[in-house]
């Protein structure tokens, strides 16, 4: 399964943080610099494995922990409709 960001949502990168608006709820979300990196990676459809491998090569982190964190990140993103499968 491939993941990509929900391109229907308004968003901007401001001060190294991604701010995303959900117009339906008027809710504003923010992603920190790591979240921003993931947001960039999912500008086109990619697999979860691709994202984990990419981040593992860029950050000094245990791979299992990274995998758990990324899965949790996408679970939350999915709940708020910030990604499109």
């Amino acid at each position, binding site marked *: 399964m491939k993941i990509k960001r929900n391109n229907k949502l*308004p968003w901007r990168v401001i001060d190294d943080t991604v701010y995303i*608006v959900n117009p339906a709820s008027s809710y*504003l979300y923010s992603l920190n610099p790591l979240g921003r990196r993931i947001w960039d990676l999912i500008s086109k459809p990619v697999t979860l494995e691709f994202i984990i491998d990419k981040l593992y090569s860029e950050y000094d982190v245990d791979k299992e922990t990274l995998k758990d964190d990324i899965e949790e990140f996408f679970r939350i993103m999915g709940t708020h409709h910030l990604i499109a499968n």
Partner: protein
Amino acid sequence: MIQEELFEITYKKNIPLITVFELTNRCNLKCRHCYLPKNDKCSGSELTTEEIKRILSQLKRAGCLHLVLTGGEVFLRDDILDICKYAHKLNFDFRIFSNGNLITEKITRQLAESGISGVEISFYGRESVHDKITGVRGSFEKSINAVNLLKRYKIKVTIKCLLMKSNFNDYPWLIRYARNNGVSYRFDPTVAPKNNGDKSILKHRLSNQQLKRVFGDKDLVGNVSFEDRKGGGFSDWSNDLFCSGGHNSCGIDPYGNVYPCLQLLILLGNLRDKTFSKIWHPGNGSKLTQLRKFKQDDLQVCNKCTYAENCRRCPGLALLEDGNLLGPSSLSCKMVKVQCDKNHLNFT
């Protein structure tokens, strides 16, 4: 919390988070309180579609997220849906201010597909009151139709109403209408002078007695905006008696002129001559740099005022109505006094 954080960062870094973009001064109504002078001689030609798209791209690069497309009446532009689609493509959170009279089902369908965040429709009261204020018979019915169409296509609708002497008695009806139809509402008691300084329309302002009722009505709490064209209604944040205009909000008129705000008419430059970035980040000594340096300490009269803490002073109104950017705004003075006296606040 995130909203406040974003507002503060953009304010401090002068990132134009909110832009109110007037796409035309033409209008199909003849509202008695309109702030646009009838004979708009300063104009030249309206920005073309391509010019607007170029400006939107520049605004995106500058960090603008919230965009208001307004007029005049924006649906008099044949290219409005094209502009909306482009704004969506650039991931703006954009909405339209309109009187709704030209909104058809075909337009509504295309608007829904354009990714628009919402439409705000001007209303003034029941049919007879509304049509009298707009100067066009049948305008009320068309606005009602627009609300119904927008709702049917699941576009967020807000009805907004300028409160004046002539429609004051109708605001409870408007609240009932909004609630019965599941739409948001917003009221504004700020009748501003025309952009050319003409104060003849100020006679429509509410009396002190009417203002007292506005401030005392629990149905209006949280739905009253005190700064009609400032910030596009996205936020009430303000850290002193200056405002966000020129920091993180800006206004652009139909001819490409850039202002700190469409209520604060200090011309910063024209987008046909310069890029947005060049206008928004000018060198030292520019009008904008000077404006950004002003702090509450520079407001010598307001600083001594016992009402200062509660005041929603608008620098644009102070300049336009009272002729001094650093002086009191007579309307703000009137409103804060009525509001505080209503609340029985004690001052020493």
